[in-house]
């Protein structure tokens, strides 16, 4: 059901620049990951590569709705969140290339990073574990008088973990302003939703926590952004968790080692026709927020940033083996 996205939404509610920033974030993420994929197949990347192809509208649409004091626990497909919060593409390449100069100084790799000064936590792999970290983080910030909210990202698969449940229930009991962004991309690695859960929609879980659940088209950045602005606005007034379920499809494999042969072709085609970047371009041009030319300019600026970022990261050193034992403890 390819639809003309956001057709009913009024983009002029918010400044033009915000839309362009969202678009830029999506492009930076997509193009960076395209480069990553190429590097992976050239065996220039150490470890795996897990991309957010098809998820860009979710991360960009949500994270750009956050304020300076807000906290984020992005997941493996959320490069957009990092970029929206100010991470440079250079830092992303440093991370993937295990550079000593990167956000984890080569200590961790690919998707496991985050800069706390940008309000972003570095994930651990254990699915669901970061939600409660977001909860505690925002509890602390609110004690300090900040009207912060947190956005925690999880996949459909991660909703089956005990950690998901514990954290959402806990947040509800403490009236924590937590937006749980469920990126329902219909698969967890090779496992389809039918083998993961049996509720109709994952937001059917919201009443079980005494909270609200909201659904949104995860391939439509405009819809995501406008909805999240609204939710977050309310959350700052009346702190409570909210489940946000974003429908999408993982366009590529779980990682680049996986050809996703288990995803039906028709489903792939359906979502390919609803690519979040295409959608966003269409929304912006239809609403006369930007011309195709202006968007093309953003695209090429992003490409340039990526070329430069990659080259610079490549030139930087990996960690000195002599430093292996450093940094285990804080002093």
């Amino acid at each position, binding site marked *: 059901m390819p639809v003309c996205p956001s057709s009913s939404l009024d983009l002029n509610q918010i400044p033009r620049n915000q839309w362009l920033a969202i678009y830029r974030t999506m492009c930076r993420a997509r193009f960076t990951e395209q480069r990553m994929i190429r590097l992976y197949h050239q065996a220039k990347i150490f470890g795996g590569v897990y991309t957010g192809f098809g998820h860009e509208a979710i991360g960009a649409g949500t994270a750009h709705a956050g304020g300076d004091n807000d906290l984020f626990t992005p997941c493996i497909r959320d490069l957009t969140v990092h970029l929206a919060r100010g991470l440079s593409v250079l830092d992303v390449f440093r991370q993937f290339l295990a550079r000593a100069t990167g956000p984890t100084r080569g200590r961790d790799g690919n998707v496991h990073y985050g800069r706390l000064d940008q309000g972003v936590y570095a994930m651990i792999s254990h699915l669901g574990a970061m939600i409660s970290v977001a909860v505690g983080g925002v509890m602390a910030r609110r*004690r300090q008088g900040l009207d912060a909210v947190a956005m925690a990202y999880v996949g459909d698969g991660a909703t089956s973990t005990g950690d998901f449940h514990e954290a959402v229930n806990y947040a509800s009991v403490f009236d924590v302003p937590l937006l749980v962004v469920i990126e329902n991309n219909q698969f967890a690695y090779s496992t389809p939703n039918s083998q993961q859960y049996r509720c109709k929609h994952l937001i059917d879980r919201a009443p079980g926590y005494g909270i609200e659940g909201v659904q949104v088209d995860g391939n439509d950045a405009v819809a995501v952004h406008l909805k999240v602005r609204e939710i977050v606005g309310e959350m700052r007034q009346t702190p409570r968790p909210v489940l946000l379920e974003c429908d999408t499809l993982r366009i590529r494999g779980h990682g680049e080692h996986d050809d996703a042969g288990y995803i039906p072709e028709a489903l792939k085609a359906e979502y390919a026709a609803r690519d979040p970047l295409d959608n966003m371009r269409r929304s912006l041009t239809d609403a006369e927020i930007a011309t195709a030319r202006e968007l093309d300019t953003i695209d090429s600026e992003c490409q340039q940033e990526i070329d430069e970022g990659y080259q610079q990261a490549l030139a930087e050193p990996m960690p000195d083996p002599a430093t292996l034992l450093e940094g285990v403890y804080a002093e």
Partner: protein
Amino acid sequence: MTQTLAETGVVERTYVDCIRQALQQLLRDDDRVVVFGEDVGAFGGAFKATLGLQEEFGRDRVFDTPIAESAIIGSAIGMATQGLRPIIEMQFLDFMNTALHQLINNAATIHFRTGNAVPITVRAPCGGGFGGGPFHSEELETIFCHMPGLKVVYPAFPCDARGLLVSAVEDPNPVVYLENKYLYRHVKECLADNFEPVPIGVARVCRRGSDATIITYGAMVHESLAAADVLAAEERQIMVVDLRTLKPYDHDTILAAVAATNRVLVVHEAWRCCGFGAEIAAGIAERGFHLLDAPIMRVAAPDVPIPFAPSLESVYRPSAGTIVEALRELIEY
């Protein structure tokens, strides 16, 4: 006399009293400190270690949580990385097994990975000797010591209980604070109101001796001292070292104590196989081999689940009696 004691604030304090006192002082002195966990609020915790604290400091500082160990530890990580000093209570150490990843994978690795400090203190009531059975008596220090990034302390005396708790909370790292349930009310000291922090990483020689050295910690310090008393009656002088901190442990004090007697017995309440005592023994076998005149012996719990029946638990749990036997064998080697 009684009056003088009262004037200086010296009173007899139990181990659990000292934990409570330290929590109170920490909450008073530093408003970044928060205390939470299951039933720690108005109820004062399963062992009453937090009794009165919610009343004094309010629900904002001392609060109950749902039964969700992973969320408790996870939220503490979130708070600690945002400037608070969370102290969490696991109702029993045993239940932390439902959420070890939050401690050993998440909290413990954050500084190494990102450079962000995670000053959380996890209070974990542990140990047996009171009919707790297999699920309320565990001693899991070996797990915490194995995983890089944690510090692990384990006081044996009231005075160390309060001094180490303050150090744990002031430390910028995640610290597992193991508190022995049997000791809560069984061990008392006459102590003044004021106290100093006890530094992390420093063992204490509780008793000097020349015939053999016991390296131990927790409840077994007391059993070891009792065993040393027995042997003293036989003109054998036993050195007893209370490690107090298990990670990072005090190599130097251990080696010096071994050097003084050339015979060493490692004692703990945890299971023998891969217990913390294995690390101590291995460390000595590696770095203090030249000091040894006899095999390094271990007294520990046998590798069976913790039995409930008193007839079994009393032989399961190491005691002054089993320590005495081992010491005799060691000295006679």
